[in-house]
C-alpha cells in the first residue's frame, strides 16, 4: 500500500544520537518551511512592485526559485523523519518479520549509498562553483555557490537521518519500515 504515514514519526527512544539527529532534522524542517514562507513574501512583493509601483523586478524570480530548491533539499531530512516520503510497501507487507528486517537493512544500505554519492558529488559541484567563482548568467549574477550549498547541506542532513533510521531499526528502537 502506498503510504504517507502522517501519524508516524521516526522513533528515537532516549538514545542521544537519535535525538540529536531528530533535533537537527526538525531544525532543517523549520528552515525549509521558513524558506517557503519567505518565497510567498518575495513573490507577493514582486507582484506589488510590478503592478502597483510599476517598478522593475530583476532579482525576485531567481531568488524565489533558489529558495524553493533550498527548501526542498534542506526539507528532505525532516520529511524523512516525518515518514512523509511516499512509498509503496507491498513487498515488506508480504514478508515475515525476519525477512522484512533484512529487506529493510538492504533498502537502507542502498538509500544511504545513493545519498552518500549525492553528497559527495554535490559537494564537488558546490566546490567547483566556489573555487571558480561561478555566477548565474542573469542581471543579478548571484555567486552560484550560495544556491548550490543546498546540495551538500540537504543531502548531508538526509544522510544523517537515514543512518539514524537504520540504526534505530538495528537496535530495535524502531520497526522495519515503521510497520507494526
Amino acid at each position: 500500500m502506498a503510504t504517507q504515514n502522517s501519524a508516524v514519526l521516526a522513533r528515537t527512544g532516549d538514545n542521544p544520537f537519535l535525538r540529536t539527529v531528530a533535533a537537527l532534522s526538525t531544525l532543517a524542517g523549520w528552515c525549509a518551511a521558513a524558506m517557503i514562507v519567505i518565497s510567498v513574501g518575495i513573490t507577493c512583493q514582486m507582484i506589488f512592485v510590478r503592478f502597483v509601483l510599476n517598478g522593475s523586478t530583476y532579482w525576485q524570480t531567481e531568488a524565489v526559485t533558489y529558495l524553493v530548491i533550498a527548501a526542498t533539499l534542506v526539507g528532505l531530512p525532516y520529511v524523512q523523519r516525518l515518514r512523509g516520503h511516499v512509498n509503496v510497501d507491498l513487498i515488506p507487507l508480504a514478508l515475515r518479520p525476519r525477512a522484512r528486517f533484512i529487506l529493510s537493512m538492504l533498502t537502507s544500505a542502498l538509500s544511504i549509498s545513493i545519498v552518500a554519492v549525492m553528497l559527495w558529488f554535490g559537494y564537488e559541484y558546490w566546490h567547483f562553483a566556489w573555487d571558480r567563482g561561478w555566477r548565474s548568467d542573469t542581471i543579478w549574477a548571484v555567486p552560484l555557490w550560495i544556491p548550490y550549498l543546498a546540495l551538500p547541506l540537504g543531502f548531508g542532513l538526509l544522510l544523517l537521518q537515514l543512518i539514524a533510521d537504520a540504526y534505530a531499526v538495528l537496535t530495535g528502537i524502531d520497526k522495519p519500515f515503521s510497520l507494526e
Partner: protein
Amino acid sequence: MDPLLLGGIVAIATILVLFSGVSVAMGLMIVSAAFLILFDGFGSLELMPEIFFGKLDNFALLAIPMFIIMGAAIASTRAGADLYEALERWLTRVPGGLVISNLGACALFSAMSGSSPATCAAIGKMGIPEMRKRGYPDGISAGSIAAGGTLGILIPPSVTMIVYGIATETSIGRLFLAGVIPGLLLVSLFMAWSLYATLRSGNMAVLSTRRYSWSEKIEVLPRVLPFIAIIIGVLYAMYGGVATPSETAAVGALLCLLIAMVIYKLWSPVAIWDVLRDSTKESVMILFIIAAAGVFSYMLSSLFITQSIAEWISALDVNRWVLLAAVNVFLLVAGFFLPPVAVILMAAPILLPVITAAGFDPIWFAVILTINMEIGLISPPVGLNLYVINGIAPDISLRTILVGSLPFVACMVIAILLLCLFPGLATWLPDLVMGPAI
C-alpha cells in the same frame, strides 16, 4: 545490449525497487544510479546532483508549494464542514439533496484543498453519518465520498495538473481549463448513479430533505464564500494574463492563510505551524520526486531507452485507439500502485511523444491520465481514499466501501470513453478562453 530489452530490464528493476518499501523518489535515484554505473561507469554519477538541481531550477515549480499552502490552509479550517452545511441548506429542493450536496461539497472542497484524503476526511466525517442516519445504503454513503474526493486532482486548481504541465511543458492554464468540463461530467455521473442506486434500494423516504429558512441559508455564506472567491480570483488572474500561475498562487496562498487566521481564528502558532508543516512536507515530497524523476529520465535517455521505446511503438504501426487503450491499461495499473504524481513524472516523458505522434492532444491526454489516476485512488491495493473512509467510518467494512466505490469506477470509465468519443469535452473550454492551441 538492445535498448528495448534494456528498457524491459529497467522497468522490472524499477517495479521491484519501488515495491520494496523504499520511498518513490529514493527508489528512482537508486535505479538510475545502478544502471548508470553498469553502463557508463561510476564516474557518470558525477552529473546526478547537477541534474537534480537543474530539474528544480524552474520558477514554475513555485506553483506547487503555493497551491499546497492554499489547500492546507483551507483544510485546516472548518471550511469543509461549512461548505457541506451550506450546500445542504441550499439544495433542499433537489431530490436526494443530501447525497447530491455531499458530492457537490466533495467536488468543491477537493478542488479547493487539492487533497483527496483531506476531502474524504472533512466531508465524510459529517456526510457519511448523516446519510446513514437518513437511511442511505452504506455503500452509497461511503462510495460517493470516496469517489467525490478524487475529483480534486481533475478540477482546478490541481497540483497533479501542475506537475503534468511541468513534466510535459504544456500550459498549466490550459490544463486547468481542460479539467473543468470533465470534472463536472464526472460529478454529474456520480450524482446520477447515487440517485439511481438510492431509488433502487427502495427507500424513497430518504430522498426527502429538511427545509431551511432563508436566514439559515444566508447565514452560512460568509464562511464559505471567501475561499471560493480567492480560488476564482486566482484562476481569473491567471487567465487574464495578469500573472503566471506561480505568482497568482503565491498571492492566493497569502490570502488563504490570512482568511484562515481572520475568519476561522487560526491564531495560535501551533495551528499555523501545523499548516506550514503539512504543506512543507507535501511540497518537499513532490519536489523530491520531480527532481528524482528528472535523474531517472536522464538515465533512460542516456541509455537510449526513451528513444527506442518511441521508435518501437511507432514501428508497430498499431491503430491509434488500440495504442490509447494500451496506454490506458498501463496507466490504470500504474495508478493502482503508485501515487498520481509519481506515475505522471515517470510516464509522461515516455508516453507523451508516443501519444502526440499518434495525433492525440497532450492537453486532452492529461485529462484521460488524471481520470485514470482517480480510479487508482479508490481501487485496491492502494486506494488511499478507501482507507481514509475506513478510518472515519470504522463500522462500514472495507469490503462494503470497496463494493460501494466500484460503480463510481464505472462512472470514471464511462467518462474516459466519452472523452475519447468527444475530445472537445476537454479541449473546447481551453480553446475558447485561451485561443486555439497551436
